[in-house]
């Protein structure tokens, strides 16, 4: 069956429940603030945000697949497109764009111009190494792992550090085929 082009996320976005954007930003800000107070080390906070994102991602993928009705992706390129157009739109209300594919097609960049997590935020000088939106990298990693793709997600550009957009580098490490827990009966 020929793969359907990823539908725009607008239709899905219109059907899911919405939350106030300011409440969302302020809540996320409070989480990051609290983590900083508890853990004190910026690297620890980055790791913890990634872990939290991972836990969200492994659960989020089911909701995403159920609500968005996308068909099975044929290759990683399609996966990246679906994440950028449908996934981000459905959960954050913004679309990302995909760029900078490498020659093998296993690594790409997701570029976000607008990010509701960082409304009103300015990093103080003491936290310059903080990846404020690191939860997003965890979410993508967790979600893809549940559909048998092991990936590595890193931040390339961050507007809070002075760049002009947010750029996430998603690298497909390997595709893990589904394993059945039982041996075949001979």
């Amino acid at each position, binding site marked *: 069956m020929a793969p359907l082009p990823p539908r725009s996320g607008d239709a899905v976005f219109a059907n899911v429940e919405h939350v106030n954007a300011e409440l969302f930003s302020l809540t996320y*800000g409070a989480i*990051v603030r609290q983590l900083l107070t508890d853990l004190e080390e910026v690297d620890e906070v980055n790791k913890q945000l990634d872990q939290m994102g991972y836990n969200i991602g492994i659960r989020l993928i089911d909701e995403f697949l159920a609500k968005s009705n996308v068909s099975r992706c044929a290759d990683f390129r399609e996966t990246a497109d679906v994440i950028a157009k449908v996934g981000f739109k459905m959960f954050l209300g913004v679309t990302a764009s995909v760029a900078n594919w490498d020659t093998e097609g296993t690594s790409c960049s997701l570029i976000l111009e607008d990010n509701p997590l960082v*409304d009103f935020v*300015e*990093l103080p000088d003491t936290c310059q190494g903080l990846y404020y939106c690191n939860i997003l990298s965890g979410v993508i990693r967790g979600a893809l792992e549940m559909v048998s793709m092991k990936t590595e997600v890193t931040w390339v550009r961050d507007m809070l550090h002075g760049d002009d957009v947010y750029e996430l580098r998603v690298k497909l490490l390997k595709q893990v085929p589904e394993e059945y827990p039982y041996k075949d009966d001979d």
Partner: protein
Amino acid sequence: MDDYSKSCLIDLGFQWVLQDPKAATIRESESGNSGGGEEERRQLGKMIVCVAVVGHQNNPVFLQSFTDSDDALKLHHIVHCSLDVIDERVNNPKKSGPTLNDTFLGVLYPMDDCKVYGYLTNTNVKFIMVTTEIDVKDGDLRSFFKDLHSAYVDAVSNPFHIPGKKITSKSFAKRVSSIVKSFRSGTTS
């Protein structure tokens, strides 16, 4: 200004005269610091001299002066004294006092050359503006304070801002500068 004049000025407290026969050098500066000494446009007469934000415990949260650093101390002084006027007004509401939530207090203290305007939010945060503008329209002032209020709200929504401490956000300082500039260009024509 010589020392004798300076000491007279301090004695008089409020009487603060802006007389700057020096040529108006127009140098724009993009970043803001609290406490002043920023080179901004210095035109004779009509300009906003300083903007201050004071918290509900009368703690200074933000102060930016748009004139010579010499006068920064006097500006602090003026702002302090205007706080007293605000307290007076708040505690003894006049019969014809405004019943709006965000109270625009109007002219707090007219002095020789400048006027002090105040604005009180319902969380008791005060915005104070000192200007040498002689004739300011009410509508301009209200919109100025409204813009200042929204910039303030965005600045305190920053999760890294500690309520009660000074606002260290550079973008807030930039926004205040641009609000001041647009006010100036709107009324000085």
